């Protein structure tokens, strides 16, 4: 099949989302199964794309409208994008199923549309090769996220959405200013061409432009102190949406930031930007871990934990070394799996027991053993216990961090990890060794999903070779800018 058919990863969710009103007009009950079907199809396409990219070892360049970049917009589905598009699709598929169980608030058809568009937005952010197109997809993601955060229509949900919106709005405005600067200086919007020209830009313009772009993305990527919206949004959003936020929406922002960062390596102040990002990332980890420590609401606690892990990824990505980027990508993958599992488990508990406060988790080991087991495995993995997947990526990050000269950063992150261990282990104790209750029946399919994720965690934990090789390739895709530029068939306009 022609590589251009990879455009389907964008087209399919879009056309399906537009089709939902029609389905609804036919039968309201068909909406959620339709959602499931579409996400399954998306998994198929993403799997094909993944296979294509990794067997040929070459990125797929989708040229929209047949225009070669920089004239047209291109999608760059390299190793990283292929990997993450697959992860997005798989997680969305799981969450589509979870939504059937979890989301009871009307109108479900709108939910389905927004769900698909959130998936689309993240996919687009990761796949695109054009800086303004990145902005558009970022906004698609963000606005869907605003809507979905408030979807439960409670006061808290609306409040969280409002915070997200105001902060996101400021962020995106400044991102756009950054685009204006970069465009004004280079006359192009194509990332590869910007990378080529980055060295020749007026240094002030480049510095401010890069800073503003990163600022805008950092809001999405939950870096301290720009992450104040995140815990609220995580807590208030419907459970499947929280999973999606944590598993890939943030990752898309992070990836975009990293991509832009490495593309603009030639900018003279590049290293200072890196240092600033490292500081922010470390602070993110520390503040988030401490905030999680005495949290009463488990969902919020895991949200903070997620933020801190994201900070760790940002730290790795901002190290400016191949090892760091590889480690960061590896951590992204692991974190996506683990946090999907955790939020899924916690969300399921929330549905079954009607709340996610710490008290609800007492005796969970007896009431919902399967879910409790899944949450336990996820927690242990998040703590970084060996033979679970995060251990490997954490070690990688630490090694890369010190090698890049950020010993203090690594020390602080490790210190914060101790705090993380404390609250997760307290949770585990509460689940298994405190309280009790009657056994509740657990959904078979959700159990299967959780066990699948648990198995992934353990497989990567025991034998990370394959996952690591994927992460390495994906990391090289981000880090190796020369290859990126040479892979994009630039027309040579004006250059």
């Amino acid at each position: 099949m022609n590589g251009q058919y990879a455009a389907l990863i964008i087209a399919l969710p879009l056309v399906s989302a537009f089709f939902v009103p029609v389905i609804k007009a036919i039968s309201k009950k068909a909406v959620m199964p339709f959602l499931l079907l579409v996400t399954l199809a998306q998994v198929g396409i993403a799997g094909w794309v993944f296979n294509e990219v990794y067997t040929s070892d070459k990125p797929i360049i989708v040229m929209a409208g047949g225009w070669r970049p920089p004239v047209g917009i291109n999608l760059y589905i390299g190793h990283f994008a292929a990997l993450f598009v697959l992860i997005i699709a798989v997680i969305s598929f799981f969450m589509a199923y979870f939504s059937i169980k979890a989301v009871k608030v009307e109108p479900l058809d709108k939910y389905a549309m927004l769900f698909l568009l959130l998936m689309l937005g993240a996919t687009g952010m990761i796949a695109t090769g054009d800086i303004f197109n990145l902005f558009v997809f970022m906004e698609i993601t963000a606005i869907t996220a605003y809507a979905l955060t408030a979807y439960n229509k409670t006061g808290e949900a609306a409040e969280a959405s409002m915070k997200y919106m105001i902060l996101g709005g400021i962020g995106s405005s400044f991102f756009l200013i950054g685009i204006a600067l970069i465009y004004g200086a280079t006359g192009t919007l194509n990332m590869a061409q910007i990378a080529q020209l980055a060295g020749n830009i007026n240094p002030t313009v480049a510095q401010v432009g890069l800073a503003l772009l990163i600022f805008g993305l950092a809001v999405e990527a939950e870096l301290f102190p720009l992450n104040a919206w995140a815990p609220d949004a995580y807590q208030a959003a419907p459970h499947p949406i929280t999973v999606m936020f944590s598993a890939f929406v943030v990752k898309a922002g992070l990836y975009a930031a990293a991509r832009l960062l490495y593309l603009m390596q030639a900018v003279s102040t590049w290293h200072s930007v890196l240092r600033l990002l490292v500081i922010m990332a470390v602070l993110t980890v520390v503040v988030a871990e401490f905030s999680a420590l005495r949290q009463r609401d488990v969902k919020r606690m895991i949200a903070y934990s997620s933020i801190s892990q994201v900070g760790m990824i940002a730290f790795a990505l901002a190290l400016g070394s191949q090892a760091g980027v590889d480690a960061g990508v590896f951590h992204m993958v692991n974190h996506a799996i683990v946090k999907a599992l955790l939020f899924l488990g916690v969300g399921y508990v929330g549905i079954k027991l009607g709340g996610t406060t710490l008290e609800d988790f007492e005796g969970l080991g007896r009431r919902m053993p399967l879910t409790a087991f899944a949450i336990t495995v996820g927690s242990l993995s998040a703590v970084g216990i060996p033979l679970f997947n995060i251990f490997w990526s954490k070690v990688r990050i630490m090694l890369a961090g010190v090698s890049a000269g950020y010993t203090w950063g690594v020390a602080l992150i490790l210190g914060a990890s101790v705090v993380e261990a404390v609250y997760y282990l307290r949770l585990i104790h509460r689940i298994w060794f405190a309280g009790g209750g009657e056994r509740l029946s657990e959904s078979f399919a959700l159990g299967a999903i959780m066990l699948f994720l648990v198995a992934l965690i353990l497989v990567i934990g025991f034998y990370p070779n394959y996952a690591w090789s994927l992460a390495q390739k994906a990391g090289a895709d981000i880090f190796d800018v020369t290859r990126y530029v040479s892979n994009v068939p630039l027309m040579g306009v004006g250059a």
Partner: protein
Amino acid sequence: MVSVLKRSLAIITLLIIGYWIAQAFAGVPFGQDKMLVGQYYLNNVKAQTGAVNAVTAVVVNYRGFDTLGEVTVLFIASTGVGALLWKRKKERTARTEGSIVLTTGTRYLFPFVLIFGAYIFIHGHLTPGGGFPGGATIATGFLLLYMAFIVYEIPHKGFEVAEGLVGMGYVIVGLIGLMIGGYFLFDWIWQTWQLGTNNIGRLLSGGFIPVIYTIIGLKVGTELSGIIDNMIKEEVRE
């Protein structure tokens, strides 16, 4: 006091930020030719797309992907507003009719507003304007109806379905391009079928630009009308 302090702090902060941004923009001098890709567009727009309006060509054809996203954003807004303001039963609660000037004017103007909107989006490739302004104009017509008559409601079911169908239409046009030309959003009308090559500068040219703009116009019109509808109506408790 706190407020004054806060204000002055805000002003100082903002001035520093403003200065910072401004000094950066000093590096992008105003009014100079900084075009790179832009010049390519200007040079080739007629031959490659058949459109006279370069902006339209860029929007729909060269950077069609952005526009697809843009349409999506608007769709999200309409869906999102619909989702958030969803109530089991809603109806209009306005108590007073519009003035006679408004009602009468609306009655006569409404078709013309619609026609004007359609004109704008159909001629998008020739004149300033396009799908979005056109759609917005159409929505204005419905807004007029809402303002003038207390009982008026748009046929939302139909609008919703239409919205979805035209959205699909856009993607399907793109997919047809993928099948015919091998690229998603490929302008098959102009480049493969070469329709209207002799008509540059007239209505029947511009490849699929008018088609897409029609789609966008309809979509924007229905969506904005839907948003208005959602916001104006209030919940009815039974």
